């Protein structure tokens, strides 16, 4: 190193990057999305707290979509066990299980890996049941066409305000376990809807009970209409406006 002018000194090089940190995940997600679109598989990222009723909703959906003869498949993500995947298989939905270990969310690479070699192209619906968690899953694009967030009436009315990142990303919020409303003095679907409107610019919710079947019709109509729209078919929009209760 020259002592006079400092030539040979290391240089400080600044680089403007301006890239999404999760561009790697996003790239894989776009790849997944392209595959799903090409093969007309309606992929849904189903999220929600532990106990929000995601698995029960899918079990009930299997029965509801049997009539039109739809082919359902699922990927179930959980930290440990494959109990969710097992329940879905018993309900007639072929399911792959992803045991994430410590990871609190699914990511696009996990989905890509799980589907490798599996006959997913034959499906009409692929339900990706994400890890029960209202924080992390919202951050990772999986390549899904729709984000559905399950929110149980037992969680109270202020969850949306506490978890705006998740609810903002929802294409549809399914308010579950409405059969329990008579036992919950301080909860009403109207209050939940009000909270959603403060974190979702275009709030859309369907209130239902997987147990009694109330509201399941609106859910399956939304599924079929959204699936059809994705296939480019001509279809009247799903019944009603942003809020539906009842069959």
């Amino acid at each position, binding site marked *: 190193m020259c002592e006079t002018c400092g030539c040979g000194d*290391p240089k400080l090089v*600044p680089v403007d990057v*301006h*890239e*999404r*940190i999760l561009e790697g995940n996003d790239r894989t997600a776009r790849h997944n999305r392209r595959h799903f679109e090409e093969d007309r598989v309606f992929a849904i990222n189903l999220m929600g707290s532990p106990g929000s009723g995601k698995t029960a909703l899918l079990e009930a959906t299997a029965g509801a979509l049997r009539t039109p003869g739809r082919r359902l498949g699922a990927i179930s993500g959980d930290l440990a066990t494959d109990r969710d995947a097992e329940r879905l298989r018993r309900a007639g939905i072929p399911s792959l299980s992803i045991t994430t270990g410590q990871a609190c969310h699914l990511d696009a690479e996990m989905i890509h890996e799980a589907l490798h070699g599996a006959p997913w192209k034959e499906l009409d619906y692929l339900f990706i049941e994400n890890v029960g968690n209202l924080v*992390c899953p919202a951050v990772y694009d999986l390549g899904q066409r729709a984000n559905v967030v399950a929110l149980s009436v037992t969680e109270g009315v202020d969850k949306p305000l506490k978890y705006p*990142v998740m609810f903002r990303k929802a294409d549809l919020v399914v308010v579950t376990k409405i059969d329990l409303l008579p036992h919950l003095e301080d909860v009403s679907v109207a209050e939940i809807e009000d909270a959603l409107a403060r974190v979702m*610019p275009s709030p859309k919710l369907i209130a239902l009970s997987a147990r009694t079947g109330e509201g399941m019709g609106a859910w399956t109509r939304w599924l079929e209409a959204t699936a059809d729209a994705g296939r480019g078919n001509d279809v009247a929009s799903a019944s009603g406006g942003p809020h539906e209760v009842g069959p």
Partner: protein
Amino acid sequence: MHEYSIVQALLERATAEAQGRGASYVVSLRVRLGELSGVDADLLAKAFDTFRERSVCDGATLAIVRSPAVYRCPRCGERIERGAILRCTSCAVPARLVEGDELVLERIEMEVPDV
């Protein structure tokens, strides 16, 4: 909780940049974190401190720029107040998030030997 995976992605990107330019090490990173990015700034900083060791980012500083969530009417530009219903009362259209969900690596500074 997932801040570890964010840090991993950051370190991989910084390492690739450093290798591409023959840098000896990374001096600093600047990241923009939106209020609605789903990533916690303090947890990210802690995770970075932990996982940068023995990487080319060992000793690098991490600057985190935070962006608040800003919703505006796409038609009249009116800002929607925090906590209010996300719909413009004048135009009756849904508000749009114009700022606040960023999860971006903005800048890397590296030391490159002058040869």
